[in-house]
């Protein structure tokens, strides 16, 4: 930390490399919006950043209660970062429940900004508190900034035509303004966003702008803080154009890109479910890309319509989470049987059953790879960060089209709602993979289940003269596709479908090792654990530890040469947000390797410190 005097302010300006703020309030307090705005502004001024929204499944749990607390954590930095941070430096608590739920995570000596306007006896009671934490000494280890935001926002908006209820709804922008002041950020990005958001209700745009400005000014006027802080732009980022992106949005854009690279119309059949709905919502607004979105009556109809569209020549797509994927399993089996291009996006959440709808988990891996009746191989790939979801979605489309197969794309709640800066690709740099649809009867006649070099069957789309044929879920004879109950043909076809999927290995790269290619511990991850693993490896390597990591995008089939890579380390640690599913797969595929599972099943992502500790324990052995 360095200290200097800002030219334009009397208060000293302290520089930090990286800061973590957690905004916490009632689920109706607009904390997600506040956090997102802070994130956008920080992105625009050039910080590297990562976010972690953590909100309840209930839209509005009883106001002021602990289950109703919604949080948004953002970490912004002047250096490269990979996670939203283990512990907040600053906690903004809009009510007693938000304070009591989150205070244990705050860094010792951290700042807690408390809205005292929401600390009446009845507020304490709603939060199940018998004593007021502001006065009982429990916050003595922190720097507490007390401010009556309810009152301040009322004063700021005096004279507007808004009802008192509407005025109170502007509290979050007052808070945001205060944080902008504290961290020396401009208001313009949010001003512009408010104007667009409330284009039809300019009085609300105006009120929120007033509230934000008042919050900003409060920093100067009220002497709440002893100084201001600054986190300079990140200079170590690779040159290029960036934007801030959330995982679901990156997934949606990647799917649009994938369809364009294949030269196909994208058809999404989907049913709203948390946290996958964002992809359906995004794609529904991309009609001008020719995208068809069909909000089906249920999860089953969603995937069935998508598979029907694939038969009719579209790139079929369905998106879901949690129990939704269970409902789609029968149709996935049919997709394996009829061999049509279909992308199935599973934004994993905590399970089983309804489980933890808004929390993250990676426990659907087995289901993705094995979870169907019969021998029904499906390739599975996984995104590792919000921005990575773009490329991974394109890769899912490529495999689906080139191999005429359903593909499962796994993301999770942490990726879906998390955000990070995305170095934008140039469209001309994306490699096209044009789909081939037969236009006429091929020489030698049309055989619906003939095979090409990828073992893919030809795609003959209804509307094409001479290629009339029938597909279905009954076993098909090799080449003709006619119904066949022949025992040898069944074994042949089962092996054919298996070989086709395993053959995808020939088209995927072996991932690079991060760090040295030999050492004591290789941390092997897949999916959203990437950020925490990378941070842990960086930290340990700085200390001279012989540790490296490897991250899988293709989780089934696995890329080639993994065994050779693993053999160069004493042990392989596999951290997963499940009971060790990938570890089990690796043990069965590579029984000679020393594979150690590190499970975490709390609906929460790994913390860097947890990983560092675990790896160090392994190194001591």
């Amino acid at each position, binding site marked *: 930390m360095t200290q200097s005097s800002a030219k334009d302010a009397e208060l000293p300006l302290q520089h930090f490399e990286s800061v973590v703020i957690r905004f916490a309030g009632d689920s109706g307090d607009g904390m997600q919006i506040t956090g997102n705005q802070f994130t956008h502004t920080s992105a625009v001024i050039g910080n590297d950043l990562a976010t972690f929204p953590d909100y309840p499944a209930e839209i509005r749990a009883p106001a002021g209660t602990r289950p109703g607390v919604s949080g948004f954590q953002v970490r912004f930095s002047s250096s490269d970062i990979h996670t939203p941070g283990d512990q907040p430096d600053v906690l903004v608590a809009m009510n007693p429940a938000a304070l009591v739920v989150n205070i244990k995570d705050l860094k010792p000596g951290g700042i807690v900004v408390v809205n005292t306007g929401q600390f009446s006896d009845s507020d304490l009671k709603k939060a199940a508190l018998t004593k007021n934490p502001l006065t009982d000494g429990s916050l003595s280890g922190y720097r507490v900034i007390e401010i009556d935001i309810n009152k301040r926002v009322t004063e700021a908006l005096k004279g507007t035509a808004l009802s008192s209820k509407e005025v109170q709804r502007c509290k979050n922008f007052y808070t945001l303004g205060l944080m902008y002041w504290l961290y020396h950020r401009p208001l313009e990005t949010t001003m512009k966003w408010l104007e667009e958001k409330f284009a039809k209700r300019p009085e609300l745009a105006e009120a929120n702008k007033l509230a934000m400005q008042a919050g900003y000014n409060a920093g100067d006027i009220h002497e709440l803080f002893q100084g201001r802080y600054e986190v300079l732009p990140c200079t170590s980022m690779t040159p290029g154009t960036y934007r801030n992106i959330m995982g679901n949005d990156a997934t949606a854009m990647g799917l649009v890109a994938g369809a364009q690279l294949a030269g196909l119309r994208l058809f999404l059949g989907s049913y709203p479910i948390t946290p996958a709905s964002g992809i359906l919502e995004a794609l529904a607004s991309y009609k001008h*890309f020719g995208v068809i979105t069909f909000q089906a009556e249920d999860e*089953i109809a969603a995937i069935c319509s998508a598979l*029907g569209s694939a038969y009719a020549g579209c790139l079929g797509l369905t998106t879901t989470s949690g129990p939704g994927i269970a409902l789609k399993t029968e149709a996935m089996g049919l997709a394996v049987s009829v061999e049509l291009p279909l992308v199935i996006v599973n934004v994993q959440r905590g399970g089983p059953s309804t489980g933890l709808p808004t929390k993250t988990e990676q426990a659907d891996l087995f289901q993705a790879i094995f979870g169907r009746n019969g021998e029904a191989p499906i390739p599975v790939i996984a995104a590792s960060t919000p921005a990575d979801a773009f490329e991974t979605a394109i890769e899912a489309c490529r495999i689906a089209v080139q191999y005429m197969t359903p593909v499962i794309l796994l993301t999770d709640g942490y990726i879906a709602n998390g955000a990070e800066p995305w170095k934008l690709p140039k469209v001309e740099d994306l490699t096209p993979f044009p789909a081939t649809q037969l236009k006429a009867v091929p020489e030698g006649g049309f055989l619906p289940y003939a095979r090409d070099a990828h073992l893919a069957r030809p795609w003959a789309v209804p*509307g094409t003269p001479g290629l*009339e044929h029938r*597909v279905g879920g009954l076993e098909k004879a090799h080449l003709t596709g006619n119904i066949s109950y022949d025992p040898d043909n069944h074994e042949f076809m089962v092996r054919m479908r298996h070989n086709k999927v395993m053959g995808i290995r020939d088209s995927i790269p072996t991932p690079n090792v991060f760090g040295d290619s030999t050492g004591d511990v290789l941390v092997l991850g897949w999916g959203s654990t990437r950020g925490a693993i990378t941070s842990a490896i960086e930290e340990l390597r700085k200390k001279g530890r012989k540790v490296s990591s490897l991250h899988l995008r293709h989780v089934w089939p696995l890329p080639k040469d993994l065994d050779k890579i693993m053999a160069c380390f004493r042990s392989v640690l596999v951290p997963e947000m499940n009971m060790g599913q990938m570890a089990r797969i690796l043990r069965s595929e590579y029984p000679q390797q020393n594979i150690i599972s590190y499970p975490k099943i709390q609906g929460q992502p790994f913390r860097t410190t947890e990983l560092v500790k675990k790896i160090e324990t392994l190194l001591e052995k």
Partner: protein
Amino acid sequence: MAEAQALTKKDFKSDQEVRWCPGCGDYAILNCVQGIMAALGVPKHQICFVSGIGCSSRFPYYMNTYGFHSIHGRAPAFATGIKTANPELSVWLVTGDGDGLSIGGNHMAHILRRNVDVKILLFNNEIYGLTKGQYSPTSPQGLKTKTSPMGSVDRPMDPVSFALGCGATFVARTIDTHLKHMEQVLLAAAHHKGAAFVEIYQNCVIFNDGAFDAFADKTVRDDKTIDLRPGQPMVFGKNLDKGIKIDGWEPRIVPAAEADVWRSDTHSPGPAFVMSQMDSDPAMPRPIGVFRDVPGPIFDRSVHEQIQRAQSTKGVGSLQKLIYSGETWTVT
């Protein structure tokens, strides 16, 4: 190309051996549908038959068109995907009472209310045939089957009432043994723009033989059924001497001269619903023919109209612009 000449029934027969039980009502329906296809003059590469699972759902294999034998109950979802992907296709859905109304009842409701331009043929044999004889959602109460040895306690549902309740824009009923009638009804369904739902009473010779004899047998049919023909008086009987009058809320039998003129296009589906429930009184004839035929916005067309509108107002989407949208910044 064969399509340039007029197609015949034979053009629509596939090379697959038909494997229904000898005497099954499905044969008559297949034969009639193949004839209809030839009469409609739609090129066979523009036609797609979609089915679920069950005896009736083997239908697509026997049609020399495009076809998709899908999942039990889910044919409406597949058909919706196919038709929405390409509205130029003529999409036909073949289902049964179990497939379409039990496991797939939900999807049936939604394809009808959305008014997807798909022609739906529901073969109702009031039994599960492919699983060898269990009661279905249309089996009459008391029917003794393998799973209802003391008689089914389930109350049956009426497919026509169901379709009307879903807001279907075309609802009709016919009988497998009444070929001329079936042909007329299927042609009317084919010409309807939007979802067309046709219930076909279909005799299962093995597990529910004679289920419809009480009114469908040729010896009693004229007196025990009434053909609803839009714009025509509701008359029936061998000598066309009896008629139906909707008297207040209840239909009753009157001399032919007093019969009401049937209308399938009333603002409310009320009259059609009244007629669909008429035979709950065993003294009344079983209505067949066209219950409802009204225009309505078509789902698949509307989807593409929105896409065109979006493209004409926003311009055809540019991927580069999409990726670079929102607030961006440059690191040098």
